[in-house]
């Protein structure tokens, strides 16, 4: 398993990296799980805001009006009113930071708007100028900053107990305690770890975490700990905090042990592999093994829900021109499902049992975003959508070789808009190789 080396740096400048050309950031509305993800609405080019005037020549802080020239996730390229077609003083800022306001905010607080010094000579009647350029234009809702603050409240708190996949044995779960919450991402420390070093990062909506008792309820393997009593302050995270899965009807035709399918390999998210249903659990959950790579004791089976966007019917890769990773050691190449099923005496899982829903996600190839390296899930990295197959996104980590690419669902809580790290205070991993130009 390849993993990246952390580059502890600050000052990567998304704005300079995106620039004013054809590179775009995925819109905030593509990420329903992030702050403002469901209330970003039509915030777009042309919207006017009140921003600090950094060219006033005055000792006190004053504001002026700017228009959005380009949006990239939470970040906006702004131009002060009065600069018209002059892009020389354009600047990027995160539209969700506290110093960006709807037009009208200054007047409500008794603050006068002051035009930048460099254009003061251009106009003798600023009132007439502003009436002309603002009438009929859009601005932010008056409660925009309140909404930003509200959307950054997260229900998971330190010392809450959860069940989470054991990162060293994917086939089982363990109890872990929430140690840190940043932007909805949880740092979980496995129970029985004295020094807090045995940790795991995931988003609070990750399919890898569950309420206490989940494993027993569905028949999933679980590593029991010797901790017999909760310590002071520890509390089981309430069930309603976790991502819900769709109810499924297992009473009719259903997955059976031994059925074949295609699945994203959780240990190599760059690959979609030939796989087998190893065990059918309750509530629609399945234990899946990657053909040719399985430990004899099943310790590397992993759990996917039957509605998971990470499992596919046999033939999915061929239909969509994706390279299917054949079982390790299988020599009859090119791999043919028909032959393989006959040789193994197995059947393919019925197509109708898979999730075929494709949301209108809004991602396009080339869009930039911030994405978790799922092989090292504490890292959120500068990334690009390079391919889209229905709801599946191919995520490339900028500056890294293609072998680090990962297949990720369009609704994955591990994808974030440009500016999310800045907004939440999470450390962003910049592209691996960069010229000085992109540093602030």
């Amino acid at each position, binding site marked *: 398993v390849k993993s990246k080396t952390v580059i502890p740096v600050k000052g990567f400048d998304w704005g300079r990296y995106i620039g004013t050309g054809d590179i775009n950031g995925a819109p905030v509305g593509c990420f329903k799980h992030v702050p403002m993800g469901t209330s970003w609405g*039509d915030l777009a080019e042309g919207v006017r805001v009140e921003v600090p005037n950094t060219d006033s020549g005055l000792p006190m802080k004053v504001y002026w009006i700017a228009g959005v020239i380009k949006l990239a996730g939470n970040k906006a390229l702004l131009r002060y009113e009065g600069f018209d077609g002059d892009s020389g003083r354009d600047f990027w800022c995160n539209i969700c930071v506290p110093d960006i306001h709807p037009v009208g905010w200054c007047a409500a607080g008794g603050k*006068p708007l002051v035009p930048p010094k460099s254009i003061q000579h251009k106009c003798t009647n600023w009132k007439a100028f502003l009436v002309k350029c603002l009438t*009929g234009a859009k601005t932010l809702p008056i409660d925009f900053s309140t909404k930003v603050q509200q959307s950054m409240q997260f229900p998971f708190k330190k010392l809450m107990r959860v069940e989470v996949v054991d990162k060293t044995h994917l086939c089982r779960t363990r109890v872990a305690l929430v140690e840190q919450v940043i932007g909805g991402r949880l740092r979980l420390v496995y129970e029985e770890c004295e020094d807090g070093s045995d940790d795991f990062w995931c988003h609070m909506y990750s399919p890898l975490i569950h309420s206490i008792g989940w494993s027993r309820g569905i028949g999933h393997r679980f590593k029991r700990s010797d901790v017999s009593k909760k310590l002071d302050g520890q509390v089981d995270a309430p069930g309603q905090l976790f991502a819900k899965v769709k109810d499924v009807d297992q009473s009719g035709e259903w997955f059976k042990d031994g059925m074949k399918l295609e699945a994203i390999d959780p240990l190599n998210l760059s690959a979609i592999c030939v796989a087998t249903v190893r065990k059918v659990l309750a509530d629609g959950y399945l234990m899946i093994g990657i053909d040719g790579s399985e430990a004899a004791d099943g310790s590397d089976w992993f759990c996917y829900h039957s509605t998971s966007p990470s499992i596919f019917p046999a033939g999915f890769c061929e239909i969509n021109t994706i390279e299917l990773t054949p079982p390790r050691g299988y020599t009859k190449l090119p791999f043919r499902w028909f032959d393989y099923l006959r040789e193994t005496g197995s059947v393919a899982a019925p197509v109708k049992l898979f999730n075929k829903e494709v949301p209108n996600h809004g991602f396009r190839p080339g869009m930039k975003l911030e994405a978790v390296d799922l092989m090292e899930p504490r890292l959120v990295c500068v990334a690009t959508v390079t391919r889209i197959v229905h709801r599946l996104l191919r995520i490339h980590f900028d500056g890294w070789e293609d072998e680090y690419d990962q297949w990720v669902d369009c609704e994955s809580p591990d994808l974030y808009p440009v500016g999310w790290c800045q907004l939440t205070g999470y450390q962003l991993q910049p592209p691996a190789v960069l010229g000085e130009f992109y540093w602030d």
Partner: protein
Amino acid sequence: APEASGRKWEQKQVQIKTLEGEFSVTMWASDDKK
């Protein structure tokens, strides 16, 4: 009016204060309550 979308845009009288005085303009602001 701004382009049709799932969000309701409302015309609002927005107050502006400059060094020359105060006045209002009519702008569009989105209403999230919809």
